[in-house]
């Protein structure tokens, strides 16, 4: 894509986003009104904001008794036109607030990043200075800065307001940085020798900066109020320059006579704060899809008769979509498969292929705003897409277990392993706490943990990655579920631990007769583990079949590509396959043809037009490729050359 194209597309995306987010649009409009009012105050004001008329003091607003259209908002105690003062006041108030936020925020941000990332004596010194600042009364600070010179300029006010807030920013940012720098990927980046500056910019900052607008917003409005407090304490701006704060402070004295006077600046602050809130909320959602992560309330599909099956799990035409502001993303597209008792289904695909969403669709724990819109998930005779929430909760953990890629973050960091195990066991097996404790110890022994008592007492962060994943497996398997979904359970682990863990998992599965869905991007892992292999691409199944057949005789060009890549080296820090050139399609704008066509060496005209259907290519073996229906030889030849 060329640069103008990219820009046009970004513009289109923004337009679509804004049109979908009415609140953000409203916020922008509101903010524009406030800013324009400030900018064009000289034109809009009916009067000079400084012009006094002692014969027209404290006039009520136009709509009140005794008010006149000449002074739409009435006049102040010196007979100055309030509407004009409000308009002119917007300039100074916005300037002071924004500049103060930038000063306090900027300073705090830098201090927070530096102290959080580098720590040491610098951290100690700056944080102590911050403590002193926090414990030092604001009024005294204001007097110290503002009281010493006869004239008080906006710059001095900005200094006081900014200085009082930097530490709040610094602390929040620092704690964020502290937690970010301990995250695996940051550790990994550092271990790989990335420079501090690079780690900060590339990994830490993007995850930290999002707190800034939230605090900034809060302080924007707050500063106007504080400015009025300063006026109230005789420390405000040198008169007669109008600001919302000084109008507020003036209004206070006359509350009994003119209760409306403080309301105008109050409303102005409210509108400004609201507009900034709305815009900032929208901004966060637009730029940082991670914020979209979170619990999506589950809405079961309308009930219908499920087709009976003797399999543990029968998935038919399962479709899962995410309704985003910018459009609808189909993450899982008409996926069907079956899983027999005690069988292992291996699902393989690149990241973004929809395999994890598929897993979460089955266990009905999709992130917001995802939802299953079509199909059936028949598990032990019940359609999981249609059972009640209560019933689903009863099945989760008890009949369907799940383990995740990152065991470290999948265990609650502030609860002990023992607590989480006992809680789970008591929930499902109705044990008393003593029995649950014993059972928990057994569960840990079952996954090959030698010193279960120590691990029970431990918090997750005190365990190694392998140990954490063993705990996860124990958590899932201790109640002997009928189905275990393992979503890349070993990706984060070293090869030795990976092998041990897989072996243990396989033994357990055999012992307990559990069916397993094993999700991986590494097709080699499935070679001696899975009974059935399912290959996914762009939310669709490209190929499914018995392990032997799929691995030895792959029929889909994508499967072939995956297998070819196995022996090659993967780029560190990514799980993208380097063997297949090109990128997966943009899920927001799917083509009507085969999603793999743009990357497929054998793509034909029809591939770009029509999405191929699954066709049988052997016993239990199906693939979705036009080549299979036109010239199968070519495909076979391509696969084996």
């Amino acid at each position: 894509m060329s640069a103008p194209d990219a820009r046009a597309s970004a513009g289109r995306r923004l337009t679509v986003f804004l049109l979908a987010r009415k609140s953000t649009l409203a916020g922008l409009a509101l903010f524009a009104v406030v800013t324009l009012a400030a900018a064009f105050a000289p034109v809009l004001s009916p009067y000079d904001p400084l012009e006094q008329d002692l014969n027209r003091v404290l006039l009520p607003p136009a709509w009140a008794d005794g008010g006149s259209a000449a002074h739409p908002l009435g006049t102040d105690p010196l007979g100055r036109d309030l509407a004009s003062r409000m308009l002119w006041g917007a300039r100074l108030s916005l300037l002071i607030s924004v500049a103060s936020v930038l000063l306090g925020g900027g300073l705090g941000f830098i201090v927070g990043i530096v102290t959080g990332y580098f720590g040491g004596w610098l951290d100690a010194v700056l944080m102590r200075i911050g403590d002193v600042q926090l414990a030092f009364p604001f009024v005294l600070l204001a007097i110290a800065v503002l009281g010493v010179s006869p004239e008080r300029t906006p710059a001095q006010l900005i200094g006081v307001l900014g200085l009082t807030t930097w530490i709040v920013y610094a602390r929040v940012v620092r704690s964020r940085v502290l937690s970010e720098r301990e995250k695996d990927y940051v550790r990994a980046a550092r271990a790989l020798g990335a420079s501090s500056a690079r780690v900060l910019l590339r990994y830490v900052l993007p995850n930290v900066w999002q707190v800034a607008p939230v605090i900034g917003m809060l302080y924007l409005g707050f500063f106007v109020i504080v400015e009025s407090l300063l006026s109230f304490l005789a420390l405000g701006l040198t008169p007669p320059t109008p600001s919302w704060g000084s109008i507020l402070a003036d209004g206070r004295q006359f509350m009994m006579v003119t209760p409306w006077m403080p309301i105008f600046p109050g409303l102005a602050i409210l509108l400004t704060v609201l507009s900034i809130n709305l815009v900032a909320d929208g901004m966060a959602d637009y730029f940082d899809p991670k914020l979209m992560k979170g619990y999506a309330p589950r809405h079961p599909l309308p009930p219908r008769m499920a087709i009976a099956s003797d399999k543990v799990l029968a998935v038919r035409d399962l479709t899962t979509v995410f309704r985003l502001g910018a459009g609808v993303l189909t993450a899982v597209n008409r996926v069907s498969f079956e899983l027999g008792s005690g069988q292992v289904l291996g699902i393989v695909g690149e990241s973004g292929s929809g395999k994890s969403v598929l897993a979460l669709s089955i266990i009905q724990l999709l992130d917001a705003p995802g939802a299953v819109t079509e199909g059936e998930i028949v598990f032990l005779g019940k359609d999981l897409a249609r059972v009640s929430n209560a019933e689903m909760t009863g099945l989760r953990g008890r009949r369907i277990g799940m383990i995740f890629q990152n065991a470290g973050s999948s265990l609650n960091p502030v609860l002990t392993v023992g607590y989480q195990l006992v809680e789970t066991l008591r929930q499902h097996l109705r044990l008393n706490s003593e029995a649950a404790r014993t059972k928990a110890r057994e569960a840990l022994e079952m996954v090959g943990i030698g010193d279960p008592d120590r691990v029970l007492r431990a918090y997750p962060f005190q365990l190694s990655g392998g140990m954490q994943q063993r705990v996860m497996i124990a958590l899932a398997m201790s109640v002997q579920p009928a189905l275990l979904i393992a979503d890349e359970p070993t990706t984060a682990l070293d090869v030795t631990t990976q092998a041990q863990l897989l072996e243990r998992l396989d033994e357990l599965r055999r012992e307990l007769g559990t069916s397993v869905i094993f999700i991986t991007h590494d097709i080699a892992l499935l070679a001696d583990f899975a009974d059935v292999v399912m290959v996914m691409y762009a939310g669709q199944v490209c190929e499914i079949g018995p392990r032997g057949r799929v691995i030895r005789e792959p029929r889909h060009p994508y499967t072939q590509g995956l297998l070819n890549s196995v022996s090659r080296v993967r780029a560190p820090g990514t799980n993208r396959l380097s063997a297949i050139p090109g990128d997966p399609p943009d899920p927001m704008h799917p083509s009507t043809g085969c999603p793999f066509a743009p990357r497929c060496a054998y793509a034909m005209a029809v591939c770009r037009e029509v999405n191929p259907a699954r066709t049988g290519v052997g016993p239990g073996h199906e693939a979705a490729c036009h080549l299979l229906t036109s010239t199968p030889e070519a495909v076979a030849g391509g696969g084996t050359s």
Partner: protein
Amino acid sequence: MTAHLARRTAQMLLVVYGVVTLTFITVRLVPGDPARLMEPPGTPETIIQLVRQQIGTDKPLHVQYGDFLAGLPRGDLGKSFRGGRPVGELIAAYLPNTLLLGIVAMAVATALASIIGIGAALRRNSVVDRAALFLVAVAQSTPNFWLGVMLVLVFAVQLRWLPAIDMSGPESFVLPVATLAVTLLPLLVRTVRQSFIDALGDDHVRAARARGIPEHRVLLIHVLKVASLPLVTLVGLQAGFVLGGSVVVESIFNWPGIGTLALKAIQDRDFPMIQGTVLVIAIVFTLVNFVVDLVYAALDPRIRY
């Protein structure tokens, strides 16, 4: 743990020392001679000089500073320039009232903020959420001196349900607490909401759900325990605001608190009184934050001393 306690105590002493020293310097830099304020305007310089000798402001700064520091270990904060009563005694009489008001207001605000914030986080982007954020914006835009007086005019003057001023029975807490709580709410609600949303998106919450932990336990134990961490920090920070910034509320409700004591002392340039109140505020503030750190450590096992 002992080593940590010792280090923390040293840190706190350092912070308090810093605040006290800064205060000492500040009050003497600001224009306004306490001696001149204690005598009628126009009093001849010779008499003013006598007053300076009497209250000790004629001494060189380092001597005054030394005297002040020397008194501290004995708990001697000096005598007020106005009325000559011991500063410590006055603070001891006023501080509990501020603390009581502050604690009640913080408790009410935190409880309210938790309910509103969690409700908004659970129904993110819904009407409930939007209403909550709107309320927060309104609270944020309402000056507490206006709100306080309006509450008094409605509930004390018009309806006569509650007292307008004074600290007396429990009913006298309602209006000042409401005024203070509204000021505290916005930051608390936003923090609760955001940290709840963050925690709800954590992997371990999904993992807990995947284990079949019922929703109420997920929210009340798994999410709350993680989400409360930033809240605890914030409460510590807001303690400073309540202590030092409740001047307006105390003045509107004639609350016999340390805020008005400090403000009056500043107006009078009553140096011992300013130093005393600031010192006590700083000590309380650092202690509160020390407790906050302990609570934080208790909540988050990753932090160990």
